């Protein structure tokens, strides 16, 4: 049986519900969350089924509206796409469950639009993952970005400014990507990725192709927050509502990185981005710089969210390094890190949100003694942090392990040093939090204490967050260990056939 329709079933429920939720919510605002959850679960189920189908019978393809590619828009789910789709949809489902309470608290009167935007964001992201068409990728990119701008904008006064700046930079990214696609289109006469690849395989000597490659690289570089194009990210992640940054931090930039990977795997011919245009080298250099700069910047932050944001910059840079090395092992490491980082960042941001919304605290100095007051939240944070540092057998260790191996195999010693050294820098900023949470006496509980976000409707003195906040967080935290121990299954069955 042709399972190709599964490809379109991944973004479809999200897109449909994104349109329906704001309307329904006008009548019953309580319906927004269950409907969104249903859509997200449906999309997760579709991704899992798609992954199963891919593992069994190879890549799936679906021609939109029955127009056969390359004329019509094609949706393709191969190993890599299915993998990323499962990661994105399942992590975001957990986050949607875990942030329900915070969403009510933060945007209670606008739940309809809020969930509409969340679903639109996820629809855009999952669409980017499954599309096999360069222009369609642009459309989904802009859909997800647009939703993200609006969501960030919901985060109070600072969030408004951050949201507008994000919109400016993000639009430049989209525009540059589109321009690059234009060059490619005029060089090849097609927009279907497979078709472009076929034509470029035969002849990729034109200047237009080179220009297109560089423009696409820059455009996606902004979307994946590649240093020095990351400047939108810290503000956006810090000032967005907690229910938003918990969602966008794990998945958004990861899909940008995935799109970049797609260009390597299925658009440009083998080695083109290495030999003809130095995109791979640029990714390698910028990635190494990003790991160092992101980690150093994270070390000096006073706000946990901002610290985690800079940590994201460093970790995305590591994915870029994997693309830059470009060997199968390095690509496996990069993909594994996409998953690992999504899971652990979701755990970390979830617990940061839990801390902020239960106590009003978000500064590093304010978590003192929280290890006793909020044991489960801090346990999730600890597991996420340990995985982020890269202590075996957590997931974060193994992506670094493979990445360093790829570095050794290619003789890229700087990669080995930076990737392993980043563990130490991560330890510095993570233990700043952990030490305060566990080994400092509890901070005096005072309403409106310095460092509490002015807009946080904190309930000072609150104990552990409620169960429906805690269990998704615990699932994510436990996943950092499970995915670490089970990494070989993923690598051999899903990632290696994919790259």
């Amino acid at each position, binding site marked *: 049986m042709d399972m190709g329709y599964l490809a379109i079933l991944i973004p479809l429920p999200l897109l449909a519900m994104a349109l329906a939720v704001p309307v329904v919510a006008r009548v019953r605002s309580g319906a927004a969350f269950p409907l969104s959850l249903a859509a997200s679960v449906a999309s997760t189920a579709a991704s899992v089924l798609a992954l199963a189908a891919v593992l069994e019978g190879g890549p799936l393809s679906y021609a939109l509206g029955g127009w056969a590619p390359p004329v019509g828009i094609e949706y393709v789910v191969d190993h890599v796409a299915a993998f990323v789709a499962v990661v994105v949809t399942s992590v975001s489902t957990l986050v949607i469950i875990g942030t329900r309470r915070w969403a009510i608290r933060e945007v209670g009167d606008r739940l309809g639009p809020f969930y509409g935007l969340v679903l639109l964001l996820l629809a855009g992201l999952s669409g980017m993952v499954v599309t096999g068409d360069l*222009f369609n990728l*642009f*459309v989904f990119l*802009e859909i997800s970005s*647009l939703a993200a*701008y*609006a969501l960030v*904008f919901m985060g109070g*006064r*600072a969030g*408004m*400014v951050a*949201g*507008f700046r994000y*919109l*400016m930079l993000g*639009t*430049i990214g*989209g*525009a540059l990507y*589109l*321009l690059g696609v*234009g060059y490619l*289109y*005029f060089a090849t006469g097609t*927009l279907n990725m497979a078709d472009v690849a076929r034509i470029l395989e035969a002849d990729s000597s034109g200047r237009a192709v080179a220009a297109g490659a560089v423009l696409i690289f820059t455009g996606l570089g902004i979307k994946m927050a590649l240093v020095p194009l990351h400047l939108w990210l810290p503000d956006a992640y810090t000032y967005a509502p907690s229910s938003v940054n918990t969602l966008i931090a794990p998945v958004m930039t990861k899909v940008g990185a995935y799109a970049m990977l797609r260009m390597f795997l299925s658009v440009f011919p083998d080695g083109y981005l290495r030999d003809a245009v130095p995109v791979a080298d640029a990714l390698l250099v910028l990635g190494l710089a990003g790991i160092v700069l992101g980690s150093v910047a994270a070390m000096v932050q006073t706000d946990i969210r901002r610290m985690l944001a800079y940590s994201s910059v460093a970790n995305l840079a590591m994915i870029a390094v994997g693309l830059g090395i470009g060997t199968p092992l390095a690509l496996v490491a990069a993909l594994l890190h996409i998953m690992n980082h999504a899971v652990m960042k979701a755990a970390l941001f979830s617990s940061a949100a839990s801390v902020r919304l239960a106590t009003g605290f978000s500064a590093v100095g304010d978590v003192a003694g929280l290890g006793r007051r909020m044991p489960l939240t801090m346990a999730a944070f600890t597991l996420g942090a340990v995985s982020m540092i890269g202590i075996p057998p957590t997931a974060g260790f193994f992506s670094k392990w493979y990445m360093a191996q790829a570095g050794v195999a290619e003789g890229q010693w700087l990669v080995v040093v930076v990737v392993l050294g980043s563990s130490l820098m991560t330890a510095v900023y993570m233990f700043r939090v952990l030490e305060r949470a566990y080994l400092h006496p509890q901070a005096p509980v005072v309403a409106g204490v310095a460092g509490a976000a002015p807009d946080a409707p904190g309930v000072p003195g609150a104990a552990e967050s409620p169960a429906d906040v805690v269990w998704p967080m615990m699932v994510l935290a436990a996943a950092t260990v499970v995915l670490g121990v089970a990494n070989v299954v993923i690598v051999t069955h899903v990632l290696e056939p994919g790259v």
Partner: protein
Amino acid sequence: MIDEIAARFPYWATAVLIVIGLYGMIAKRSLVKKLIGMNILQSAIILFFVAGSLREGASVPILFEGAPGARAEDFVNPLPHVLMLTAIVVGVAITGVALAFLVRLREEFGTLDEESLLEQVRR
């Protein structure tokens, strides 16, 4: 040099427009002017696509009774036009959202000057 520019006039025009747009987004302090810069940038890309589809002496891509011919090279490439319709929609959506942002920012801060916005946020 002149010849080069003349021969590829649309490309150079696009490049100049993009640079103007980026300049506006960087150098202007007013958020409205930044937004205008963004619009120029988007328009430049749309022009680039449309110019790229041009074909000397070709006709509108509509097959009608008495058309000059039925071969592909007799028509202007229609696909970029279609794409640009989508791109314009995307652009309008972004501009709309951005304008809505500006309205809210103005309500909240009473100004659209970037410096004073940041000044207010920092406090």
